[in-house]
């Protein structure tokens, strides 16, 4: 059933974009975090998407189905050096009085967040279009 699996493809896109948005929001929230369980300041995280064959056990019978979903294949952590700010009174300051802050550029995250929202909306549009097609096919039977 080609049309129903289109819904699956679009929903995989939605959940991938949602994961991305969650990480971006986490980056923004932690833009001043100097303490993490791993030690040191928070580091920016981002996702890597990869194509993903939608193979539910039932549809394994139709192996040559067209179209692929998307999945989050990896979460990468920024390896850039932390930003050093001179704050001698800060409890996390080093011997020279510098504190390591996360190297996070709010503009970068906001732009990515916008792009992620738009992609999410595009997937929603695809779902409603496919939904309309499915209900049209059901109408044929009436």
């Amino acid at each position, binding site marked *: 059933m*080609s*049309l129903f*699996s*289109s819904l699956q*493809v*679009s929903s*995989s*896109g939605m959940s*991938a*974009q949602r994961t*991305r948005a969650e990480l971006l929001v986490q980056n923004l929230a932690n833009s001043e975090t100097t303490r993490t369980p791993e030690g040191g300041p928070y580091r920016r995280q981002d996702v*890597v*998407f*990869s*194509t993903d064959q939608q193979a539910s056990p039932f549809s394994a019978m139709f192996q*040559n*189905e*067209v*179209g*692929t*979903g*998307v999945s989050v294949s990896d979460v990468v952590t920024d390896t850039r050096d932390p930003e050093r700010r001179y704050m001698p009174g800060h409890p996390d300051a080093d011997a020279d009085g510098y504190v390591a802050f996360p190297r996070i550029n709010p503009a970068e995250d906001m732009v990515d967040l916008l*792009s*992620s929202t*738009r*992609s999410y909306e*595009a*997937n929603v*549009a*695809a*779902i409603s*279009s*496919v939904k*309309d*097609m499915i209900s*049209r*096919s059901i*109408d*044929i039977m009436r």
Partner: protein
Amino acid sequence: MLDGITGNLERYIDLLSARQKLVASNIANADTPGYKTQDIDFQFEFMSLAKGQQPQVIQSQGLPEKPDGSNVNLDREARLLSENQMRFNLASVLVKSQLKTVHEAITGGSGS
């Protein structure tokens, strides 16, 4: 008998839904690095596709590549999305009206 009436339309609808799935996966993979836009050669498949067979997926040519190696153009996909939907609506109305004609022949025009 009904196959002769709706056969071509059925194939058309099948192809449209296959294409719609490709458009959906292009949109879902809009941010996947290195992903290439997928499509089917609609005219060719409509003329040559045998019943029950899957159409051949090709990569769209002539789309500019983005720095991450993907060439998904969301505007193109949005256009195809609504175009497919409208074509599908048209085809489903045609199927419906043809089946209605058959129904009228059966009931002698007296049924609703």
